[in-house]
């Protein structure tokens, strides 16, 4: 649950499978020439030759607090000092698992990986970055990619509609039915863009700093529904809301095409190629699918609101 989300395909799992072969907006050419053997990537991408922020070590950043299902606390015991909700060092949670898998793919030992907390705004601020790469459900867009390097996608997801059970909005069956409802979303998300560009309700969308605030507004009757990515929809209805339901999921926007989460790297980072190779390799080997299935509860029963 965070800033930027992927809009998405109808059946996410099916899509992920499709992506390993090509994926229209997820070019996987970069790694083709590298011909990864087993789970290794090109020799130029080994820890000794990579120009990481700290020589021989990989510094990965995400937002703090880091939310489930992307970042989970340790199965038992206290989280690492400084991480309150999700703890990257636990290796639990979807993005945590992806980050560790990429680090492993690049050849970094567990002891050579550091995590730092970086607010979303800072992740794309100009100048030198404190991290080698940043991942916090940042959706790829061409505009964003002009300011920073954005990796190949590691996750594809639909936007979904969340509401309180028993409210009139839960009866909608199509996108057109939503015209008269007041919708809300978190600022900076492609969910908000999806409301304004695709759903286009009669009333202006409400925008909040966090999904927590949006839920509070939903409970106060200030908005009728919240648009978030599907995994977050599952999470907030299960954990954060007393009475929440996932009303439906939305098809990908036609204009923007398939959306996906990317890693954020410094503009023209020497690591970008290697990271892309690592992601492609993880996808080809099926590891990315395994991680996705382990952490992202996918449920194709949720009706599609077209």
């Amino acid at each position, binding site marked *: 649950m965070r800033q930027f989300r992927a809009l998405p395909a109808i059946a996410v799992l099916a899509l992920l499978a499709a992506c390993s072969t090509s994926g229209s907006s997820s070019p996987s050419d970069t790694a083709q020439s590298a011909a990864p053997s087993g789970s290794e990537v090109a020799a130029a991408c080994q820890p000794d030759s990579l120009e990481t922020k700290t020589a021989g070590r990989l510094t990965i950043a995400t937002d703090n607090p880091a939310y489930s299902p992307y970042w989970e606390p340790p199965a038992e015991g206290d989280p690492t000092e400084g991480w309150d909700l999700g703890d990257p060092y636990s290796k639990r949670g979807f993005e945590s698992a992806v980050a560790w898998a990429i680090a492993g793919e690049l050849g970094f030992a567990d002891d050579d990986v550091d995590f730092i907390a970086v607010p979303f705004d800072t992740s*794309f601020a*100009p100048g030198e970055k404190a991290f080698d790469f940043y991942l916090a459900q940042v959706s790829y867009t061409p505009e964003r990619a002009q300011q920073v390097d954005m990796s190949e996608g590691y996750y594809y997801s639909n936007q979904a509609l969340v509401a309180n059970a028993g409210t009139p909005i839960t009866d909608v069956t199509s996108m057109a039915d939503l015209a008269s409802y007041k919708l809300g979303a978190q600022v900076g998300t492609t969910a908000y863009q999806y409301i304004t560009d695709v759903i286009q309700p009669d009333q202006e969308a409400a925008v*909040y700093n966090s999904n927590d605030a949006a839920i*509070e*507004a939903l409970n106060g009757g200030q908005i009728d529904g919240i648009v978030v990515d599907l995994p977050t929809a599952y999470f907030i209805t299960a954990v954060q809301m007393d009475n929440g339901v996932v009303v439906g999921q939305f098809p990908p926007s036609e204009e923007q095409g398939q959306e996906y989460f990317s890693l954020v790297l410094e503009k023209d980072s020497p690591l970008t190629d290697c990271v892309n190779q690592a992601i492609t390799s993880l996808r080809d080997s099926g590891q990315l699918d395994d991680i996705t299935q382990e952490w992202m509860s996918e449920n194709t029963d949720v009706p599609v609101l077209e």
Partner: protein
Amino acid sequence: MFEEAPRNSGAIPPPRASQGPRIGAGARSLLIAATSTVVFFAAVALVVGNSPGWEDFRRSFFDWAIFSASAEDILPKFWVNVRLFLIAEALILVLGLVLAVMRSLPGPVLFPVRLLATIYVDLFRAVPGILVIFMLGLGVPALRLPGVPNDPFFWGVVVLTLLYSAYVSEVYRAGIESVHPSQAAAARSLGMSQAQALRYVVLPQAVRRVIPPLLNDFIGLQKDTVLVSFIGVVDIFRQSQIEQYASFNFTPYLVTALVFLALTIPLARFTDWMVARERNRRGSSVARRGSRRGRIFGIRA
């Protein structure tokens, strides 16, 4: 540095007393101000422009294409902020004055009134605005009390009025206390009641004196209207943020900054002018020498 100081100061004649042509002194100070301004900004431009990250900085904060594209979406949202601060300011000026008068009331019987006003002012000056806006703007509607509005704009006005009336009441109170007690005593001796003395003698003088600081708070209020974005309203700041996240570029905030500048600079100069006028009216001889014709940016005009 210290050794050179005497040599440098030798180049400039010591400040003269009031003899000598006034126009010459004015022209000299203008010239010195102009030269030092040019040198200062040239140095800053040189240092910043040649910094290794200047291109990155420029791309992130001064991207003309993003500026013009986002301005189109951002500017209409300013109307939200304008409505907010105009409505709120009207309420603040009234509530602030009421609070200030409550705190200034004499006598042991009225102690509870003073106590309440004091608690109010202490509370709303200390509590972070974000907490108040969340608690009232999101929390109160979630109580689902019948008849209580849940419009975030309404709660934005309420919260700004609560927060700023606390500051403004202190400004009024400073004004009331700056009126010499002999004024009220004289009014009472003329047969006015306590209330009449306050209304016709003390308050008119007090309010006139505090207009500049009131304008100062008004400028603060204008910028704090962005608090309303925390409870869902898309105002100028939120729209800038939306543009920022869409482009990963900070230029959209520049649009917002220029809008606020265009509003606050005229207000600030107007405040300066009022200060100068007030100073002249009160006839301080020291002030009169410097500001007979007013000062702009501290330079004689």
